[in-house]
């Protein structure tokens, strides 16, 4: 099956590691030009170098998503330098945390306004082109409680609603918006790698909850994200795809 990604232009917010890096890798391999970012200059440099081996155009600059003006300027630069945008995938997250009110403003700025600003930056060019695809990244922790009451889960849940609204509103302009909710994903340097090392019992309890007895890999989520983002998924709009290896209990009835 041809995903139809050859020659597309994609912008990824947060692509230096984990799921973001895996998405970038597949998109580059499939022939997309990419604009990527991450917090640190070194990580962006490394990722750009790594992704360039597939022969498409890869550009990148570091930015702190929490700094609204810098972030908006980065988005503007990415759209302009790339010469448009067919695919937008904001991935960066502030992560979890309890005990400080600051976690709420962090999650709001990064997990909510990160995607909101990314979407607003590309809607004009996509509308003009009457074509575009946006993927928002939520989490299985939106549908099933996990990790205690915290901003991360609640803020991520808002993306499910927002994604559907976007899909309905912009569908007429050929813009599709879908949401992907990954379950626990393990990779070197990721949270679950650290949890495995620091909270072995909890980690094992999560493994037991996985029908296959393991956590997912970034590539397994990335392939689903890339499929939904690609023209091959042209009839998917406003959908929510849970990619968790069967981790969550609820039925999508």
């Amino acid at each position: 099956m041809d995903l139809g990604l050859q020659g597309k232009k994609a912008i990824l917010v947060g692509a230096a590691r984990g799921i973001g890096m895996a998405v970038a890798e597949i998109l580059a391999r499939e022939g997309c030009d990419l604009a990527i970012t991450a917090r640190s200059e070194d990580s962006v440099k490394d990722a750009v170098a790594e992704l360039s081996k597939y022969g498409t155009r890869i550009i990148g600059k570091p930015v702190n998503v929490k700094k609204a003006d810098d972030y908006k300027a980065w988005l503007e630069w990415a759209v302009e330098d790339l010469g448009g945008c067919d695919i937008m995938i904001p991935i960066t997250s502030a992560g979890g945390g309890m005990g400080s009110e600051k976690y709420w403003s962090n999650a709001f700025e990064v997990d909510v306004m990160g995607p909101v600003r990314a979407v607003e930056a590309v809607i004009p060019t996509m509308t003009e082109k009457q074509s575009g695809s946006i993927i928002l990244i939520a989490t299985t922790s939106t549908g099933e409680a996990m990790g205690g009451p915290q901003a991360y889960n609640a803020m991520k849940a808002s993306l499910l609603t927002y994604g559907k609204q976007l899909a309905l509103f912009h569908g007429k302009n050929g813009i599709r918006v879908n949401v992907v909710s990954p379950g626990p994903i393990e990779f070197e340097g990721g949270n679950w790698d650290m949890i495995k090392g620091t909270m072995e019992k909890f980690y094992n309890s999560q493994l037991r909850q996985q029908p296959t007895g393991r956590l997912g890999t970034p590539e397994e989520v990335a392939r689903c994200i890339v499929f939904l983002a690609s023209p091959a998924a042209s009839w998917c709009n406003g959908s929510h795809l849970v990619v968790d290896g069967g981790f969550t209990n609820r039925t999508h009835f």
Partner: protein
Amino acid sequence: MDVKRKVDIIRVNPQDWPNGTPTHKEEDPDLGYDVIPAERYYGEAFMKLEWDRIWSKVWLLGGRSDDIQEPGDYICTEIGKESVLIVRQLDGSVRAFPNVCLHRGNKLRPEGLGNAEHFQCMYHHWTYDLQGSITRIPDLDTFPQGCPPGAALPSYPCEEWGSFVWFSLNKDVGPLADYLSPMQEHLGPYNMDRMAWTRDITVEWDCNWKASVDAFSEVYHVQGIHPQLQWYLDDTNAQIDVYERHSRYLVPFATISARVAMPSAIPPAIYEIMVKAGMDPAEYEGRVSDIRRDVQIFKRKHGKAQGKDYSALNDDQLTDDYHYSIFPNVSMNVHADDIMMFRQRPHPTDPNKMFYDIWMFELVPEGEEWPERPKHKRFKHGDKSIGQVLDQDAFNLPTVQKGMHSDAFPGLWIGDQELRIRHFHKVIDDFIYGPDGKGPDDI
């Protein structure tokens, strides 16, 4: 070393801190690579040598000065077959005596803390004053031979240093200061006298006392039994220094071991370090690799307002573990805000057992009330948890001890990361075999 990343730990420049704890790396002595004989861990003859030439000869840690503040306050502690009474005198000095009635050998006081106006044996009520002199023998006229010689308990040398009380069973022992040197220079900058007890536990462990000293003399075991600590400290960048008798290693805390990938989220134990320092991890904008330095800067800036005087400590000491071994049996994890230390005592008769004393202290901020002293607890190996990390430390020791007896195990195969263990055994040799060193049949 099996590492995933190259980590350059930035340490303070020794020249910048001329008056504080020495930080320069000592040159490592050449102690060879011989096997350390396993028999040292179970042989009764070796145990006897240790008693005759170490335990009964050197200065030993007896307790905490703040447990005996008032005249008549005493600490009754045991070492091997001896029980020792350490008593605060009317003039504020400390004295130590054998805890044994000169009449029929009964113990004058059970192990532990207390206050007494005098010490009366519970058997026939022979009575001694705070200086150890006999003040009453009931029916003295029925002892035609009179009082035991001197009419007093013999005295043991006893001195205080660093908020601790030290004693020696050797009446001819040299000054404590000479024995401890250079620890005073190293530990003096910490406010040990402003730290209060938080834990006082004794566990009877099923291993030789040296197996316990060994266990706390290297960080090589972190990757083996404390995987979680790799997201808390860098075990691959420990600085080891050995001195004449004592030794140390300096381990960077609030950082990530080079053995694991650098995470992007703050690990739980480092989160706790930040909270304890008064930082809000949610506000933190730096990278995980910057936290150690930022905690140092934060504590330097805010310590005074928190009632914590860090002025004599260098920046590394605000985060790192300065871990000292005071020969023969004291292991101390020394930090700016707390000390976790272990006193490792031999069993009186069985080389396969020991007493593991856990002593923990926390800095009391200026103006805050001194917390109530926790009661001493005592139990056996594995009966109760002593916390995740120490449980992990304890777990292997009984099987280590069993393995020492195996005909297939000649002894310890020690690497460079375990230099302190080799040095520890070298100091034991110095005491046991003297200046001429080991003979061909010595173990």
